[in-house]
């Protein structure tokens, strides 16, 4: 094969990969503007399903519940993740360190179905013994926070590992008590990691369907659960509309943050170049 042919082969392969990844999404977006009752047949463009979505109180309630759970579980995950990562990073030897370390990473490798099932079994027996907790928002939150804490721990821990430990020593040398070292130096330096841990655990919770199915009770259906159950009964194009709205929001956030970090990076490089020059 000569080089031109190779180049064209490379390009078309790339095109195929992109088509495979993005065509379904484009189809979904296109059909959200379809007037037809059927998701697979195109009639003509309209905003009918967006109107339907606005009036679909079940779906809107599910979205609100999902947002609420995602936000709270991300907060809880980042909070506990921060402290477990800090303990694992800082204290090299304490009773139960090995246990904590493996517990913190188990949910990452354990299938969700197993985690969900074992949580359900535990919660059922606790409820039988104590009469609490009723399955619902709290139990879903518990499951998501458990999974999220594991992810947050990994993210924060990797940042701590690459952080210069001399910075904390310098803070102490300059008169910081241990808690001041944490609040004045460690925490500000961990901010980007905490933010990305928050976004990651938020997303994990927002699109989780397995854990939620095990842990929810009557009247508590998250958005993915509703979509999933409706898909079994035959999809309604208002789901397409909802998906499109989600995609737009996510894209805007991702593009904005990419542009922002690109600009920061360029500014930083310019500053460094300037400093070397002087």
């Amino acid at each position, binding site marked *: 094969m000569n080089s031109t042919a190779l180049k064209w082969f490379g390009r078309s392969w790339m095109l195929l990969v992109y088509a495979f990844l993005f065509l379904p999404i484009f189809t979904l977006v296109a059909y959200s503007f379809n007037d037809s009752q059927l998701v697979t047949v195109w009639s003509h463009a309209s905003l009918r399903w967006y109107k339907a979505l606005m009036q679909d109180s079940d779906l809107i309630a599910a979205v609100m519940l999902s947002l609420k759970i995602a936000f709270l579980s991300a907060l809880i995950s980042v909070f506990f993740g921060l402290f477990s990562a800090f303990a694992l990073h800082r204290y090299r030897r304490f009773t139960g360190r090995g246990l904590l370390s493996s517990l913190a990473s188990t949910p990452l490798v354990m299938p969700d179905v197993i985690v969900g099932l074992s949580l359900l079994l535990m919660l059922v027996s606790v409820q039988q013994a104590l009469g609490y907790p009723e399955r619902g928002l709290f139990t879903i939150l518990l499951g998501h926070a458990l999974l999220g804490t594991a992810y947050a721990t990994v993210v924060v821990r990797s940042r701590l590992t690459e952080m210069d430990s001399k910075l904390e020593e*310098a803070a102490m*040398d300059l008169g910081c008590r241990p808690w001041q070292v944490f609040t004045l130096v460690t925490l500000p330096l961990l901010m980007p990691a905490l933010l990305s841990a928050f976004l990651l655990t938020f997303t994990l919770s927002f699109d989780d369907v397995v854990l939620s199915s095990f842990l929810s009770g009557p009247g508590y259906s998250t958005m993915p659960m509703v979509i999933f159950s409706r898909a079994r009964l035959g999809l309604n194009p208002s789901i397409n509309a909802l998906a499109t709205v989600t995609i737009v929001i996510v894209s805007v956030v991702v593009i904005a943050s990419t542009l922002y970090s690109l600009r920061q990076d360029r500014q930083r490089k310019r500053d460094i170049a300037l400093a070397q020059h002087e």
Partner: protein
Amino acid sequence: MENASKSPLANEPLLRIEGVSKIYDGHIKAVDQVTLNVASGEIFALLGGSGCGKSTLLRMLAGFETPSQGRIYLGGTDITELPAYQRPINMMFQSYALFPHLSVSDNIAFGLRRDGMAKEAIAERVEAMLKLVQLSQYAKRKPHQLSGGQQQRVALARSIAKQPKLLLLDEPLGALDKKLRVSTQIELVNIIEEVGVTCVLVTHDQEEAMTMATRMAVMSAGSFLQVGSPKAIYQQPNSRQVADFIGSVNIFDGPVKENHTHYLLVQCADALLRVPSIQACHDGIAVGVAIRPEKMALSRKKPTAKINHVSGVITEMTYFGAHTSYHVKLASGKVLQVQVQSQADEDNADLSWGDQVYVSWGDSAMVLLTQ
């Protein structure tokens, strides 16, 4: 010869280290029974290769490590158990450890704020520090917006802002490139002397230690080999290891042949050496005779003196501008390093590879090494 425990200091020294050891895992001695006095106003260098314990000793002074044995006194007060944040000691880190999220002036003000100083006083002090290190126009910058040399000056300003009783420097010039190092050395010493702070610095670079320190200790395997002024250590090394570590040196080995009141005769493979010494050595004991390359002379003609010269063949010569370095291979196979000043070298301008030459030196060039 000076001894660490009998340092000739009249009053209570500013820093007194008494029999300090640091033992890891029950048996690894990182620092082994170190005793040292540092007087107020001194710049003291701890010199040694990596893993010799110099950094561990410095970290014990800063309060990041606790000694396994021994005590540390600062101005007469026992600070052995005092945590780092309560010691009137500040440190300039090797990688500077500037806080990346704070501006230059906030970095310098960091320690002052912890002391609960008044806002105006802090601002005044920060400004004075910036002026001292000539970085006033960079006050608002973040550390990553500065060059390596500028970062180093911010680190220095931050470490002296609190007016510590003792300043610790960990490889102060280690992160700079060679060209910057020489000018920075002098600048750093000037600032330290201007502030008048007592200073303990750690380095693996003997040139750095010699140019900056008023006194230094050569460390190996956790203990001091020799303590003294750079000049004393260079001219009178007390052991083979020290002679080898500080500068380049030629060492002739051999047994003591005859013992006289003012000199010894040492029988080496290539010559019989007459070494001035007031130290009595048993006949037959193996000693080393150290001679610095720059204290040797080269010539084609046989020297008039009967003793203290050897002959050999030039195997290598390198012209450095101010001096020329020759390698002379002796009959025994030993290679001597000889360094000749360019001005004094005019007679030997035509010396070249393969030439037969005589290497000679004066009596005072020789240092007897018994260990």
